[in-house]
C-alpha cells in the first residue's frame, strides 16, 4: 500500500527521519515546515495522509486542521509529546484522525498510517469481526469465539463505535456525542461505567485489557488485531 504523505514539522531532523523511513516503505513524501506551506501542499498535491506537528513557527498545528473544510480534509495524524494530553484531545476533536506520541518507533508510525489509509471512508460493514469478537449489527448480537455475549443497547452502541474503527483513538467527547448525544458531553462517568461493564463482558482480565484500551486523559482505542 503506497501513498502520498505530507510531513509537517519545523525540525529538519524529524523530517529527515520520517522521509527516509516512509520512502523506504514505498510512500511518496512531501515536506512542509510552516502552516502556510502545509496548506499550500495540501491544496496542490492532495496527500492521502498528513503527519502534523502541533508546534510550528507561524502558528498552531490546530490552525492547519481548522483551515481545511472537513469534507476536503485528508486524514491527519498529530505528532505530539507526552504530557500534552489537552492538545491531543483538542486536535482530535477538531478533526484529526489519530495521534502519535514522540518519540515513536518506525513500526508504530507505519501501523497508524496503515489504519488511517485502510479506513478510506468506507462505511462499517454490517458484520464486524475483530480478533475473536464478532459483532452482528442488524441482529444486535455479539459473540466471542462463537459464544454469545449479552450487551445492553448502550454497551452495544459503544462497542460498535469503537470496533468499527479498530486502532483509532476515540476521544471521550466523540464517544459521548455519538453514543449518548450532545446532552451528555460533560459526563465522562457514563463512559467509564459502560467501558468497565463492556470490559467485564468482553475481556478475559478487565485489569489487563486486550481489546478495549485506555488512552489516559484522551479516550479509548479498540486494539487493531495483528494480522
Amino acid at each position: 500500500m503506497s501513498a502520498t504523505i505530507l510531513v509537517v514539522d519545523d525540525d529538519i531532523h524529524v523530517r529527515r527521519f520520517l522521509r527516509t523511513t516512509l520512502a523506504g516503505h514505498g510512500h511518496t513524501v512531501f515536506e512542509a515546515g510552516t502552516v502556510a506551506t502545509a496548506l499550500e501542499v495540501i491544496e496542490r498535491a492532495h496527500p492521502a495522509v498528513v503527519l502534523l506537528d502541533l508546534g510550528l513557527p507561524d502558528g498552531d498545528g490546530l490552525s492547519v486542521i481548522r483551515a481545511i473544510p472537513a469534507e476536503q480534509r485528508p486524514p491527519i495524524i498529530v505528532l505530539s509529546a507526552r504530557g500534552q494530553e489537552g492538545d491531543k484531545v483538542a486536535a482530535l476533536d477538531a478533526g484529526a484522525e489519530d495521534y502519535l506520541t514522540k518519540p515513536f518507533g518506525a513500526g508504530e508510525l507505519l501501523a497508524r498510517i496503515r489504519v488511517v489509509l485502510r479506513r478510506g471512508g468506507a462505511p462499517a460493514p454490517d458484520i464486524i469481526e475483530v480478533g475473536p469478537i464478532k459483532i452482528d449489527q442488524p441482529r444486535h448480537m455479539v459473540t466471542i469465539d462463537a459464544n454469545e455475549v449479552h450487551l445492553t443497547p448502550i454497551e452495544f452502541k459503544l462497542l460498535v463505535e469503537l470496533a468499527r474503527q479498530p486502532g483509532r483513538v476515540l476521544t471521550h467527547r466523540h464517544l459521548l456525542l455519538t453514543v449518548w448525544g450532545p446532552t451528555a458531553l460533560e459526563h465522562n462517568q457514563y463512559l467509564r461505567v459502560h467501558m468497565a461493564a463492556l470490559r467485564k463482558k468482553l475481556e478475559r482480565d478487565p485489569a489487563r485489557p486486550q481489546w478495549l484500551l485506555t488512552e489516559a486523559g484522551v479516550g479509548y482505542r479498540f486494539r487493531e488485531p495483528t494480522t
Partner: protein
Amino acid sequence: MARLKIFFGASPGVGKTTSMLEEARAARARGVDVVVCVVETHGRAETQQLLDGLPAIAPRNGELDLDATLARRPALVLIDELAHTNAPGSKHVKRWQDVFELLDAGIDIYTTLNVQHIESLGDVVQQITGVKVTETVPDAVLDRADEIELVDIPPDQLLERLADGKVNAPESMLSRGNLLALRELALRRTAERVDADMLAYRRQQGIGAAWPAGERLLVAVGPSPGSERLIRATKRMAEGLHAEWTAAHVEVLGAAPLNEKDRERVENHLRLAESLGGEIARLADRSVPDALLSYAREHNVTRIVAGKPTHSRWRDLLRGSLLDTLIRLSGTIEIHVIAPLQHGPQRAAPASRDRPNYVAYISALVGIAAVTAFGLAVFRYATVADISMLYLIAIALASLSGRGPALVAASVSIAAFDFCFVPPRFTFAVAEMGYLLTFAVMFASSLVISTLTVRLRRQERDAVVRERNTVALLAFTRDIAAAATREDVAAVTVRHLESVFPVAASVLVPEPRDPTQLVAAAGLMPLAREEQTVARWAFDHGEAAGRGTDTLPTARVLAVPLVAGATTAGVIAVQARHDVRRRGGAALPLLESFARQAGLALARVRSAEEARDAALRARTEELRSSLLSAVSHDLRTPLAVITGAATTLRDDAARLTPVARDELLSSIIDDARRLERVLGNLLQLTRVEAGLVPAREPIPVEEIVGAALTRLEDAIGEREVKLAVPSDLIVSVDPVLFEQVLINLIDNALKHGAPPLELSASRAGDTIDLVVRDHGAGIPDGDSERLFDKFVRASSAPGAGLGLAVVRAIVEAHGGTATIERPRDGGAQFRIALPAAHVTLLEAAS
C-alpha cells in the same frame, strides 16, 4: 561549642538541685559521661540518694577542682550554686568564672541559680526582701546559657517544705509575700530571656518540663444550673495547666433520690464535660466531700473545683457546709471555689470591700456594752485604771475590723468609761485631768491599730492581685510559646486578655499591602475612627496611648504597642467591657507585660519564618545542584551510548558482524528510551512541585491499572503479572498523572525486582491501597525513605533515581501517601494509600 544549662529558681528550696540531678541521671542513662563537681546536699537524704552512682570529682580546699576536672575531660559537669564566691587563693574569684573556663574547654555544664543572684535584679530583690545580695552573677552569664529551665513550685508548697525543714537556707526572705514577688521576677526574667532568644521549641520543652503536666482537676457537678459554668471554668483551667480533668457527680446514699428533671440535668452536665474533653465519674457515698476526696486521692487529683454556695448561711449552720468540710479534709489538694453567676471577679471584689461592715460595728458596740456591764459588776474590787484596760482590749479588738469600727469603739468606750467609772460617776464631767490622757490613749490606740490593720489588708490584697497577675502571665507565656503563626499569637493574646481583664480586646497589625492601615488580626472589637487614631499613635510612637495614659486619655480604648525586636509589629487595643468609668490605667503594667510577651512572640514567629525561607532557598539551591549533576551524568551517559553506537554503525558498517550490528542498534534504542524516561520524570516532577493541581475525576482503579499495563506491554513481555484489582474500587485522581505513578512503580519493579510482578488494590475504611510488589532482592535496610528522594538509586541499574520521587510527589499532590515495605518472604513492596472517592461509579454517572 559546649552547652550551659541553668536550673533557675525564685528562691532556695524550689528544687533546682533535684531537677538538675534528675536530668543528669537521665543523661547518664543515655550514656553521657556525667561528673559531679560541686553539689550541696545540705544533709538531705533525697539529694544524697540522687547523687549515688554519679561519679564525682572531689573538691579541693572546699572549692571546685578546676584542674582535675579539665584533666578528666567529662562530657557533662554538674556545678551547684553558680553565684558562689570562691575561697581566697582560688584561681578565679567567682565560681561562674570556673564554669566559663570549663565551657571554653568544651565541657557541657548543668548549674543552678536563684533569681536574687542576678546582678541587675539585686536592687529589686533588696527592695522586696530587705536583704543585700552580695553574691551576684553578671546578666551576661545568663545570656551565655543555651538553656534556662525555670524550676517552680507554688509559694505555699515552698513554705510547707520550709516548715518541714527541707529548705536549706535560713533566709529572712522566705515570707509568702516575698516569695510571690521573687517568683514573679524569676518568671519574667526567664520569659524575657528565653523569648528573646526566640527558641520557641526549646522553650516549649523547657517550660513544659518545669511545670510537669502532673496536674489533674476534679470538678463536682450536680443538678444546679451553675454546674455548667463550673465545668467550663474547669476546662479552661485544665487547658491553662495542660492538665487532665474529670467531672464527678456524687449520689448521696440515704438521701432522697433526685427527681426526673434533676437527674436529666446531671446527665446533661456530665455529657457537656465529656464533650469538652473531660472524663466523667459517677460516685456514690454517704457524704459528698468523702466521695470527692477519696476519688481525688485515688486518681492523684491536685485540684478540686467546687461551686460557691448560693443558699443562706443558716442552712450551713443547721446541716453543715459541704465546702467547709471539703476544705478542712482536703490536705494537699487545692480547692477552687467558683462563683455560680457570670461576672468578672475584678468587679465583684471592690463591691464587697466597700460595703459597710455592719457586723463589725454591732460587735464593737456589744463588746463595749459587755465590758461596761462587767466593769460595773467588779467595780467594787478593781481600780478605774484596771477598767480602762478592759476598754482598751475592746477597742483593740474592734480596730482589727477597720478604721470605722475602731473610731466608733473608741468614742463609745470613752463615753461609757467616763459616764460609768470616771469620778464624778454617772456624769460626763471629769474631775481629774489625768483621765483626759487615758481618753487620748484609748483614741490613739484605736487609730494606730486600725491603720496597721488597713495597711496589712492592703498588702494582703496586693499579694493576691500580684499572684493572680503572675498566674495569668504564666498561663499566657506558656500558651503563646506554642503559637506558630502571627494569627496564633494574635488569637492567644486576645483570648488571654479577655479572660484576665473584663475587656474586649483586639490585636491590630499593619495591612500587608497597605502598611498605613491597621487591621484586626484577632478580636472582634470594632474601632471607631478616633479609636483607630489612638491605635495608630501607639503603633507609630511605640508607646501606650488612650484611656489611662497621658496621650489621648479621653479615648474609650487603651492601645499598647507590640514591640518585636527593633520594630513595632502591631497594637493591642482593649476596651473595658462593662464599666466604662473604670480606670484603664490601673491594669496598665500587666497589660504591658502581655504586650511585651506578645511582641517577642511575634518577633520569634517572624524569625522562624525567615529561617524557613532561608531553609527553602538552601533546599532549592541543593536541588539545583543535584539536578545539574543528574543532567550531566544521567543525560550524557545515554547520549554517549547513542552517539558511539551510531557512529560505529556509520563508519564501520562493513566490518561489523550482523550480531554486533543488532547489538549496537538495540543499545541506541534502549538508551533513547532511557533518556525519554529521565526527561519525562523530570518534567512531571517539576510540574507537580511547581504546584500543578491534579485534574481529578473518579476513575475505576481497574482502568488506571489497565492503561499502565498496556503502555508497558513491551517492557513486561512474557513476565508473569499477578493481578488482584476488584472492579468496584474508585479513586478520585488525575488519570494522566496517576498512570505515570503506576508506570514508574511497575517499571521500577521490572528493573530492580524479579517476577512475578504482583499488583493489587483493596479498600480499608476510607483509604484505597494500591500495592505493587516484586520478588527480587528487596530493599536494603534503612534505604526505604531515602529512595523517595530525588536522584537516589537503589541499585546500579540505569536511571536517574527520579521515578520514586515522581511517585511520591504525585501521590502527595493527591492527598495520599507512598511507602515502601519489606514483605517477610522477600521482594520489595510499594504501597500507595489514597483517600477513597465517596461515590460508586453509578452514583458518579448519575
